[in-house]
């Protein structure tokens, strides 16, 4: 991998983290309504995966979708404005965290119903196939989502029809307040690929390069017409299920250990310096620029108008 791609991966992760932590602050300050699901800790999955596809490829996303969308190229100012419920937001304030979407960069929509985005993503992959345009789809979902019937139906259909869909399970060990062992017996969700005669791969979701490699392989396979792959990225969310989660289901120690030893941004920064010979002076301006970008996003969002109540029913039908 060349250095500039590596720096891009770093920038994406840093952008996600900065965005998410800012969202948390803004929520706690009362500027953001609703339920907010943050992706801090899981940045390497989105960053590594989306770096392996093109701008005109698609992603399917979930309630925990900020990271997916930023990695795909979503504009953080519009995203912040969306969370602030403003007319300038990606979804004009109609969607919010659960439905954050920027279709222009290839997002098919964050879906607030667990596993509902997975079946939709198949359809975009089907379009690619019918239109012979060689596009692929990355479908993100959680460990908990793989117990949903929709996951199963989507996996079977994608395999059967050789759809160019890469299924990326962000296994962060919990579905809301339920630990993995309380929602399935398997340790490795990738095993579920066998049920569809599909390749299943486990990857370290805190290692952005590992994710990038695994997804690149799957993307090549998909573009070659060989069909889908299930990739299980082992990861962890640093915050609660949503902001305000009492987190009775896990220990502080567990969280701290992940934050200290398995922070994908820290780990990759070390690698950049050690293996890619990147200097801190190269990283600093990247970080500074992103910090500014997110600051500007907040300014944009908080300065934007709320939707006009008279426009309520504008987008129910075409």
């Amino acid at each position, binding site marked *: 991998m060349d250095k500039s791609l590596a720096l891009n991966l770093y920038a994406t992760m840093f952008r996600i983290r900065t965005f998410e932590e800012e969202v948390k602050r803004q929520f706690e300050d009362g500027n953001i309504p609703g339920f907010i699901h943050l992706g801090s800790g899981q940045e390497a999955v989105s960053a590594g995966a989306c770096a392996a596809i093109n701008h005109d490829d698609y992603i399917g996303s979930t309630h925990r979708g900020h990271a997916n969308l930023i990695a795909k190229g979503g504009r953080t100012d519009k995203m912040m404005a969306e969370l602030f419920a403003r007319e300038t937001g990606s979804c*004009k304030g109609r969607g919010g965290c659960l439905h954050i979407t920027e*279709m222009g960069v290839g997002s098919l929509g964050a*879906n607030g119903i667990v596993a509902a985005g997975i079946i*939709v993503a198949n359809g975009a992959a089907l*379009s690619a196939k019918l239109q012979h345009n060689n596009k692929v789809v990355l479908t993100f979902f959680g460990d908990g989502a793989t117990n949903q019937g929709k996951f199963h139906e989507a996996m079977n259909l994608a395999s059967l029809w050789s759809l160019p869909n890469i299924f990326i399970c962000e296994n962060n060990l919990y579905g809301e307040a339920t630990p993995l062992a309380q929602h399935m017996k398997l340790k490795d969700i990738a095993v579920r690929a066998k049920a569809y005669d599909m390749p299943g791969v486990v990857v370290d979701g805190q290692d952005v390069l590992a994710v990038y490699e695994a997804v690149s392989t799957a993307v090549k396979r998909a573009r070659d017409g060989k069909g889908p792959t299930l990739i299980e990225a082992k990861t962890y969310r640093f915050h609660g299920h949503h902001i305000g989660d009492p987190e009775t289901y896990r220990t502080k120690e567990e969280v701290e250990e992940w934050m200290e030893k398995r922070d994908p941004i820290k780990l990759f920064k070390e690698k950049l310096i050690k293996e890619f010979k990147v200097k801190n002076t190269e990283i600093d301006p990247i970080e500074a620029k992103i910090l500014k970008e997110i600051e500007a996003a907040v300014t944009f969002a908080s300065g934007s108008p709320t939707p006009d109540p008279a426009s309520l029913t504008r987008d129910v*039908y075409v």
Partner: protein
Amino acid sequence: MAENRLMTGKDAIREALIEEMRRDKTVFLLGEDLEQATFGVTDGLIDEFGAERVRNSPISENAIIGASIGAALTGMRPVAEIMFADFLMDAMDPIVNTMAKARFMTGGQAKVPMVIRTPSGAGLSAGAQHSQSPEALFMHIPGIKIAVPSTPYDMKGLLKTSIRMDDPVLFFEHKMLYYEGGEVPDGEYTLPFGKADVKRQGKDVTIIAVLAMVKKAMMAADMLAGEGIEAEVIDPRTLNPLDMETIINSLKKTKKLITVEEGARTGGIGAEIAARVAEDALDYLDAPIKRLGGVDCPIPFSPVLEEVMYPTEDSIAAAVKQLLG
């Protein structure tokens, strides 16, 4: 003027599919057993359009509807078949929570030009899980257009419109109407949504009926005509949008309203129509509204029980006479 041909409902639907698939390469079909279809609608289409565009699907209603939504979001015009309307319940989540809302939730970024075709209705002793008429449920879900054609002509014209529409459409095909004949013109035509069809003019009572009940209402009207009662029979043809204007105009004349449907009476199509009339046209009524519909009961297998579940030409005519007192 185009010549008319006598055609069954099944063939009218089939012709609409063929014409639209020829016209527009983005139209394709998916659903279970399309090659040897339960009611035969899609039989043989694979020969002309190939397996890419006539996609036999596993028994995965969620995956079928989900794939349709995703394809619609990305430039295609899928026409999904759900083998029996009862099985819509299996895909209720993507229908209600994604298909109907995608455009709104994205602030207008998305459009979802897809059609779900599905046979509803009883009459085949198919029992409680293969005979339902769930049309009314979807009136309560903003974001879904709904077609309920009652003749081969309406089926073809409305299906072609549905396929070209940029909003998602639920298209109900009553099983018993597959085999009924009717006139269909040669050549291209489409029918608009939101425009009721006055199937018969009359001055004494307004009967609103949908799907297979239109024919029963017409038969009742014939019977009544023999007794000097002139019933106006209106078929809304689409439930969303619902053409209240035509209904209320009729009421201005007749001052009496009967609704007839096959789905369960409680919470049915007639409830909504009656409520709108009670809100917006109460003064035109000079008698109580009468709602006829399926008994509030799961649908029995037994033919003798199934028979008493639904309005008939006799019960419609009797209701009219009771109303006219």
